[in-house]
């Protein structure tokens, strides 16, 4: 079996400007939604209490809301979680609330409601300070990833590659965040992990293309820079599609079988994979071109030994 039978290099660079305008628009939209709607942060970041209970039959949400309201939690969010019989209750942190006993009070309140009794599935209580620290730690991790990757790429390739790879991949990250802001999907710690994993993953993609670019520059002396880029992308395109297809199969399995907890994690990865392909081919490569990459940067004498592998 073979999917790709490409005779000539595909002229990706000819349409580079068009694609870059498209990604610029997507990027701006993502930033716009992030700014206007903001992320729907989970309890882990905002602090508060989250209680998941399960009933033997479909749960009546209205009585739960009323009972909690009279108990002193008028701002409680009550919603179904996954199925009709599972209920998720969120309570924000408040100054006057005795945070240590919230879950017990809520459970005893639920017990007073007529009908089937609730079974406690999960409680998460996070103090306000912890939430803030998690957010700063997340930002630090992001910064560290960016610096680390740029340093490595600059050392292994050239600064132009480092800059374009980071721009392209931050574009992916911002777009994922834009999706989460637009649809108001819950942004939790696993999603943060997924976003950072995407950053590594998507750079991975750019590196494979860049690697080819470097190799082509060394081997083919007569090619122009856009031709080299086109050739590098075309010759790795089958690998790109197959690898991403495989990873996506795994992620799809998580999306289908992973349940509620892994759902948004897998969703973030799915968006990351799709935009990862797009950005490494159609954002990173043109950027490298416009930053003025050329053959001379790669034919330094000390690189000779890598040629000797053949």
């Amino acid at each position, binding site marked *: 079996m073979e999917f790709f039978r490409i005779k000539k290099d595909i002229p990706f660079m000819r349409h580079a400007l068009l694609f870059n305008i498209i990604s610029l628009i997507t990027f701006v939209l993502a930033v716009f939604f992030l700014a206007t709607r903001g992320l729907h942060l989970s309890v882990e970041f905002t602090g508060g209490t989250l209680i998941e209970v399960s009933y033997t039959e479909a749960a009546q949400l209205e009585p739960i809301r009323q009972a909690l309201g009279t108990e002193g939690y008028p701002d409680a969010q009550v919603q179904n979680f996954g199925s009709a019989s599972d209920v998720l209750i969120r309570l924000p942190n408040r100054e006057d609330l005795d945070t240590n006993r919230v879950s017990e009070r809520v459970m005893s309140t639920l017990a007073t409601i007529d009908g089937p009794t609730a079974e406690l*599935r999960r409680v*998460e209580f996070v103090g306000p300070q912890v939430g803030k620290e*998690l957010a700063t730690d997340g930002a630090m*991790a992001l910064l560290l990833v960016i610096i680390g990757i740029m340093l490595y790429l600059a050392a292994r390739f050239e600064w132009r590659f480092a800059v374009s790879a980071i721009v392209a991949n931050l574009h992916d990250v911002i777009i994922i965040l834009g999706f989460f802001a637009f649809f108001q999907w819950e942004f939790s710690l*696993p999603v943060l992990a997924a976003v950072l*994993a995407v950053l*590594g993953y998507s750079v*991975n993609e750019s590196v494979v293309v860049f690697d080819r670019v470097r190799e082509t520059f060394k081997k083919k002396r007569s090619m122009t820079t856009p031709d080299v880029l086109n050739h590098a992308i075309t010759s790795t395109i089958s690998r790109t599609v197959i690898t991403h297809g495989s990873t996506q199969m795994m992620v799809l399995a998580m999306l289908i079988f992973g349940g509620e907890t892994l759902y948004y994690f897998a969703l973030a990865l799915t968006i990351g994979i799709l935009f990862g392909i797009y950005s490494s081919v159609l954002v990173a490569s043109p950027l490298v071109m416009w930053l003025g990459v050329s053959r001379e940067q790669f034919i330094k004498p000390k690189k000779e030994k890598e040629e000797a592998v053949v």
Partner: protein
Amino acid sequence: MNRYPLWKNILIGLVLLWGLIYTLPNFYGEVPAVQVSSGKATLKLDPASVTDRVAEVLRSAGIEHNGIFSDVSGVRARFASTDIQLRAKDAIERAFNPDPQDPSYVVALNLLSASPAWLTSIHALPMYLGLDLRGGVHFLLQVDMPGALTKRLDSTTGDLRTLMRDKNVRHAGITREGNTIHIRFRDSAQRDAGRSAIQASTTDLQLSDRDDGSDDLKLVATLTAQAQQTMRDFAIKQNITTLHNRINELGVAEPVIQQQGAERIVVQLPGVQDVAKAKDILGRTATLEVRMVDDTPGAVEDAIAGKVPFGTELYTERGGLPLLVKKQVVLTGDRLTDAQPGFDGQTNEAAVHLTLDAAGARIFRDVTRESIGKRMAILLIEKGKGEVVTAPVIRSEIGGGRVQISGRMTTAEANDVALLLRAGSLAAPMEIIEERTVGPSLGAENIAKGFNSTLWGFLAIAVFMCAYYALFGVVSTIALAANLLLLVALLSLLQATLTLPGIAAMALTLGMAIDANVLINERIREELRNGSSPQAAIAAGYDRAFDTILDSNITTLIAGIALLVFGSGPVRGFAVVHCLGILTSMFSAVLVSRMMINLIYGRQRKVEKLAIGQVWKPGNN
């Protein structure tokens, strides 16, 4: 040309064998067990003797066991079924706790890994499952350091007042203001006297002069940075010790009590569902009491006979001798600011040094002056019941708040006594700042979900690879399986905690790990397309792809390490698996698959065609 030397093949084979052995324990599941741990703070469990006792009890009761294991926290015995487990628990309970009203040991039902003893003996243990996979409670406790500092400064203020009186230094008032202590003086001569008195008595305070007016001279004292640091370390260590003692009594199988950051403590109690009880136990207060021993001749004999004299209580001293203690409390633990093991300055015997605050020191001086030659008992009161920690004889009047307990003690005993004197109460109050409870059914569901996603994802990839790359696809799939094997083995060896995000990372890593094989296979096809001979194509494919694999994996690893450093909780669980997975995938994709390809093709002198799926050549159509 495509041959590995024998040593390389053997090495790869050994690594895979190692992976298999260390992955094995995860498949055995768990068997019922009974755990015996200490139920009292004053009772130290000796694993060796308790192991013998448990074995003896089980033998005399005629109950078969599958091995007894011990560690610092307790002794556990495995059984074949839950029926035997229940019978064994009853037998052990009866033997170890003859008085059910006052249990000395906690005998609890428990689960242990069912892997055979030879695996356990080479330290091959199953992965440790996180709370989200097995259910239980997780608490993050914040130690109130500012509170502890205030408490310390308050007691220091009292101490300084006593010091000034003792040294006849006239001052115009001592007050605590924020994190400083202000001592007012009317003239500078008294201030100098005050300063030298303080400097002679303690090195923990930093002193500076402040003149607010001609008749308002002040000495401002702050705790030195080092003293504050010592106080913090001490507070967190003592709180952890106290929590250990209290949690022991819950009989939890594998509790986790760890320091996190400078002032936080993580407590994880797997399998515990009663959050309210857990919280009560964590927050309970124990107190120390100093009382006098009643040594009226004959009184002890009467008490043992059942006639306890009025106003006294009968206790058993450590070592087993009966002790009659007066009910009247001389001093409580609130007055005790520190207890450290050490040595007697003159006799070089092991000793425990106690420090009392100013009020405590005064009471202590008065009491010791009146009762030289008598015995004094220090009791630990917990759950409304008292235990005698130690009962020394008073040799002389003790002033100044520094008390030394010595005589017939080994260094280890001195350590224990000091620990107990401290362990009674928390050094600083704690607050729960994070709490998670996961029901057991949710945990089991999470495992099933994680397992299913990994399984189906793996199968999908395997089917595709075999169809697309034929024999090379089969080799890639085996390499991927080897990757999973090594990853699980590493996680088991490191005893990393597996969580649901960890399983997700495992699935994602597998999805990404196939990239290396795709790169190699595509490269080989490309070489073939360009007209290389099959053997040359294999060699070039692996060699050329290696650079790319290295570059792309290192960038992914950078992201993983950043997650590991800055992540917490689920993010860290994800990062650990992700990082290890990248390392194992490089090994398996490059070395394991190459070894297999070498074994298949390397021996043949002339290879006509590679079974790598269809290779389309531009010239052919």
